[in-house]
């Protein structure tokens, strides 16, 4: 061990100056080599720096673009939402208007039907009143003829009775007067009573005609009840104006 160590130390003493001289000789090479290394390192760092700058620029450009796109998107989104809202409102208005037009048409149709119904009802009532009045008149006429016939018969019989009295009692004035008065009374009774009965009949028919007139009131009630229904579904004035504006 000691010998080897000693030989090693001797080798070092010999070799060290040689190594020193060799190192000295290699020093310029090393220096150049070192300088090349530094250059290389600088170039690498420079390249890396350039790359980094480009990366940053690219990133910045991308972020800027992204922001732009985001902004555009937000604007587009808002614009689209507004447009959709406007369209919905328009759609709603159109629908409302269509509904009102439909309601208006239905009202006009109902009005026409109501008018026809009213005209029909008035005609039916008018014809019924005429028919009933005609029947009442026919009854009065029939009764009048009967009473007139009775009165004519009474006059004729009274005349015959007067002739008989004149023939049979020409020499008895008292009896003649009594009988003539009786004939007069009988004739007056039949004529006056028949006349009064005809007046009563006419009064009854007058009352009946008033009842016949009430038929018109029934018709009016019927029409008014239909009109009330019509007023219930009548749209407000502004809606009617909208429809009118649309039509014009």
């Amino acid at each position: 061990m000691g010998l080897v160590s000693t030989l090693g130390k001797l080798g070092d003493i010999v070799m060290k100056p040689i190594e020193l001289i060799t190192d000295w000789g290699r020093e310029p090479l090393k220096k150049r080599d070192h300088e090349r290394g530094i250059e290389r390192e600088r170039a690498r760092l420079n390249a890396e720096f350039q790359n980094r700058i480009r990366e940053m620029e690219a990133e910045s450009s991308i972020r800027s673009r992204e922001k732009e796109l985001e902004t555009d998107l937000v604007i587009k989104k808002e614009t689209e939402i507004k447009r959709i809202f406007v369209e919905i409102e328009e759609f709603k208005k159109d629908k409302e208007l269509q509904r009102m037009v439909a309601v208006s048409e239905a009202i006009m149709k109902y009005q026409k039907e109501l008018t026809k119904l009213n005209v029909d009802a008035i005609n039916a009532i008018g014809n019924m009143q005429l028919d009933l009045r005609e029947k009442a008149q026919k009854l009065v006429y029939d009764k009048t003829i009967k009473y007139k016939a009775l009165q004519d018969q009474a006059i004729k019989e009274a005349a015959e009775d007067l002739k008989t009295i004149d023939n049979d009692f020409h020499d008895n004035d008292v009896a003649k007067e009594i009988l003539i008065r009786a004939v007069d009374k009988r004739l007056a009774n039949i004529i006056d009573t028949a006349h009064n009965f005809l007046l009563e009949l006419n009064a009854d028919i007058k009352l009946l005609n008033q009842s016949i007139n009430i038929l018109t009131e029934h018709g009016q009630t019927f029409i008014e009840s239909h009109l009330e229904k019509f007023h219930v579904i009548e749209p407000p004035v502004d809606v009617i104006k909208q429809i009118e504006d649309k039509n014009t």
Partner: protein
Amino acid sequence: MMSTLHVLKMAREKLLFDFTSKNHDVYLPMFKYENQPVLMDLAIESFFTSWVNCHFQLWDENYPHQSGKLFYSAIKLLIQQIANIDEINSSNQGFYSNLISSKIRLLEELIQVGVRDSEKYNDLLLEYEKDKVLFEREMNRLKEDV
């Protein structure tokens, strides 16, 4: 269609039943107004009008929820015999049925006016005949006195 035929059949059955069962409303006027053709005509019209109007009641009782388009077309032909009605349907049926009922009531009132007057006429006739008989008696009495 079956519902319309059913109601028409029921109404015809009612008409026949009124005759076969000797209904008071059918037979009484036939005798009561035998010598009064005007009142007889009014009574017949009143009965027929009531019969036509009963179709509506039968329809309402049996088919209250049907539109009855065919029924109203059929009934219109009958209605036109008693009233001048152009169009009848479920919406105006109530009104026309009431109107026809009013007509029946007025016809009955008119008949009653006629009946009252006939009674008065008969009273007057009786009074006249009585006066004539009393006159004859008086004349005969005076002749005998002479």
